[in-house]
C-alpha cells in the first residue's frame, strides 16, 4: 500500500514538474463588475504567458486571504498576486512569503506594511485620472467660455476626493472654464440622473451648461438620460467626460451621446507580470509603485469596437 502511494506521488510529482511558472492570485471577491473584469483579465494574461494561475476568491474576508497566501507559500508557487481587502494586518504573512523568497505583487490597493515586504504594487493614480479628463476638456473647448457641472463620487471616498482634485489641476490656468455646480451622485446611475435633473433646472433648463464631468461612467449614463428627457442633445449641447471606461459608456459614445472617458484599467496583472518577468530574468527590482496608464478614449477611438472587446469581461 505504502509503495503504491509513493509510486503515485512520484508520478504526480513528475507530471507537475514542468518548468511553467505558477502564480498564486488572492482576489478580494467579485463585488463589482470592475473586479470581475480584473479577475477575467488576470486569468487571460496568465494563459497568454503560459503560467499556471492558482486563483483564490476570498469572499471579502481577510482571514481567507491570509490562509490562501500561506497555502501558496506551502505549495511553493513562483510569485503571489494580492488584491488586499483591507490595508492593515499583512505583516506576518508577507514576512513569511519573503522568507520563502516568493515575490508578492499588490494589485490595485495598497497595504500599510513596510514596503520591503513586497516586490511592487500596481495601481492607478486617481488624481492623474481626473487630470486627464480636465486636460481633455481644456483642449476641447479651446478659448470658448465653458460652464461645467460636476457629479462627484461618494462623499469623502478617496476616488471622489482625488478625481475632483485632478480635474481642477487639469483645467488650472484656463479662466474661461468654470465649475459652476458640484454635487455627489454617489457613483450610481439613479443618483446621477436625479442630480443632473436638478442641475438642468438650476441652469436655465441646461442652456447655460457647456459640459458635464462625472467621477464615474455610471453617473454619466444616468445624466445622459436626464439630458435627453430635458430635450437637449447629450454629447453636443452638453459635452460629457467621465472616468472608468466601462462597456456601457462606449455604447453611449458610439451613439454620440458621450464624448470622452478615462480608463481605470482592470488589467493590473499585465504590468505585474511584466515586472515579475524582468525580476526573474536578471533580478531587476521594479519601483515600489507601478502606475497603470490612464488612457483617454474619445468618439474617434472606435467606441463600438471597444465595447465589443469589453462586454465579455464580466463588467
Amino acid at each position, binding site marked *: 500500500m505504502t509503495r503504491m*502511494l509513493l509510486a*503515485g*506521488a512520484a508520478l*504526480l*510529482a513528475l507530471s507537475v514538474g514542468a518548468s511553467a511558472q505558477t502564480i*498564486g492570485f488572492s482576489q478580494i471577491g467579485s463585488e463589482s463588475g470592475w473586479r470581475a473584469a480584473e479577475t477575467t483579465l488576470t486569468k487571460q494574461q496568465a494563459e497568454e504567458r503560459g503560467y*499556471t*494561475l*492558482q*486563483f*483564490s*476568491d*476570498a*469572499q471579502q474576508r*481577510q*482571514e*481567507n486571504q*491570509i*490562509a*490562501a497566501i*500561506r*497555502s*501558496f*507559500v*506551502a*505549495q*511553493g508557487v513562483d510569485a503571489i498576486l494580492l488584491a488586499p481587502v*483591507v*490595508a*492593515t*494586518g*499583512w*505583516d*506576518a504573512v508577507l*514576512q*513569511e512569503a519573503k522568507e*520563502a523568497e516568493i515575490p508578492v505583487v499588490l494589485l490595485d490597493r495598497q497595504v*500599510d506594511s513596510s514596503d520591503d515586504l513586497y516586490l511592487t504594487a500596481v495601481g492607478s493614480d486617481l488624481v492623474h485620472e481626473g487630470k486627464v479628463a480636465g486636460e481633455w476638456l481644456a483642449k476641447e473647448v479651446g478659448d470658448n467660455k465653458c460652464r461645467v457641472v460636476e457629479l462627484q463620487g461618494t462623499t469623502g471616498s478617496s476616488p471622489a476626493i482625488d478625481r475632483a482634485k485632478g480635474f481642477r489641476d487639469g483645467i488650472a490656468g484656463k479662466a474661461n472654464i468654470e465649475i459652476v455646480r458640484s454635487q455627489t451622485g454617489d457613483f450610481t446611475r439613479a443618483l446621477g440622473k436625479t442630480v443632473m435633473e436638478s442641475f438642468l433646472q438650476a441652469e436655465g433648463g441646461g442652456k447655460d451648461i457647456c459640459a458635464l464631468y462625472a467621477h464615474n461612467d455610471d453617473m454619466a449614463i444616468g445624466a445622459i438620460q436626464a439630458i435627453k428627457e430635458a430635450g437637449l442633445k447629450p454629447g453636443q449641447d452638453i459635452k460629457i467626460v467621465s472616468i472608468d471606461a466601462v462597456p456601457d459608456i462606449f455604447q453611449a459614445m458610439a451613439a454620440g451621446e458621450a464624448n470622452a472617458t478615462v480608463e481605470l484599467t482592470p488589467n493590473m496583472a499585465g504590468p505585474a507580470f511584466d515586472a515579475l518577468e524582468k525580476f526573474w530574468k536578471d533580478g531587476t527590482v521594479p519601483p515600489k509603485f507601478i502606475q497603470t496608464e490612464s488612457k483617454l478614449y474619445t468618439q474617434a477611438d472606435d467606441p463600438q469596437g471597444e465595447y465589443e472587446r469589453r462586454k465579455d469581461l464580466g463588467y
Partner: protein
Amino acid sequence: MSINPRLYPLLATIGIFLVGYLISYLQFPAMLSTRVIGNLLTDNAYLGIVAVGMTIVILSGGIDLSVGSVIAFSGVFIAVLLRDTSLHPLAVFALLLIITTVFGAAMGWLIHALAMPAFIVTLAGMFLARGVAYMMTIDSVAISHPFYSMLTSAYWLMPGKGRLTLIGVLMLISVLAGAIIAHRTRFGAAVFALGGGEQTARLMGVNVGRTTVLIYAFSGLMAGLSGIVFSIYTGSGYPLATVGTELTAIAAVVIGGTILTGGAGYVIGTLFGVLTMGLIQTYIVFDGTLSSWWTKIVIGLLLLIFILLQKGLLRLTAFGEART
C-alpha cells in the same frame, strides 16, 4: 470487540479527515508537509478556540450566536485601547477576558432567569457586541505594539520549514482544556446532564441556574480568547471581521460529531471538525481552479451527512435499548 455506538460520530469524523487528507496528498504531494500542517493549526486557531466553547454550549443543548461578534469586538477593543492608552497588551487581554466572560455569564443568566430560548438571547448579544465594535471605530485599526510583533513572530520552525505558531499551540491547549472540563469534571457531567433534558438534570441534582451561567461564561471566555488570537493573526482590529463565524463554529462542532440537540459528543471531535474544514479550504487553494465557494458546498454536504448519521444513530441506540 464491540465499540460504543456513542463513539461512531467521533470515529466517522476522524475517518473523514484522514481519508480527505490522503486524497489531497495523492493529488498534491506537497500537502503532506509540515508547512501545511502548521498552516492548518495557525489559520484555524481562532476558529478552533471558539468552537471549543461552542461545543460545551451545544453539549448542554444550547446555542451561542454571539461569538462571531464578540471576536470582532475583542479585536477592535484591543486595537483601540493599545492605540489610545499606554496599557500593556497583557493588561488589555485580562480586561478583555473579564468583559467577555461577564458578557457570556449575563446572557446565561438571562436564559435561565427568564426561561428564554438561548437562540434569542444570544442573537441579541450578537447585535450588541457588533454594534459596540462599530461604536469604537469603523476603520480597520492596525496594532503596532512591540509586544504584538513578538507574539506574531513567536513560532517554532519544524523540520521542513513548517511553523508551529504560538496561536496554533494555544488552540491545541484550549482543546485539551475543553476536553478535560467536559469529560473529567463535575461541571462537565452537569453539562451533559443538562443536554439530556433540564428535568432529568434537576432530578440528578444539578444546579441548573449555576451551570447555565457557567456554560455561557465559558463560551464568552473562549470567544474573548479567540478574539485575542484573531488580533494576533491579523495584527489589527476590524469591526467587520468574522461575520458569520458563529455559524462556522456550529458547523465545526456538528461535523465534529457532537449531537446538535445536546447530551452527546466529544471536544476532541470538534478539533477534527475544524481541521476538516481547514483541509477543504487548503485543497481548494492548492487546486487553484475550483471556485472558493466549493468550501461552503462541501461543508454543507458534510453537515447533512452528520445530521443523517445522528438520526440513524438515535434509531440504532433506541433499537438496541429496546432489545436488551
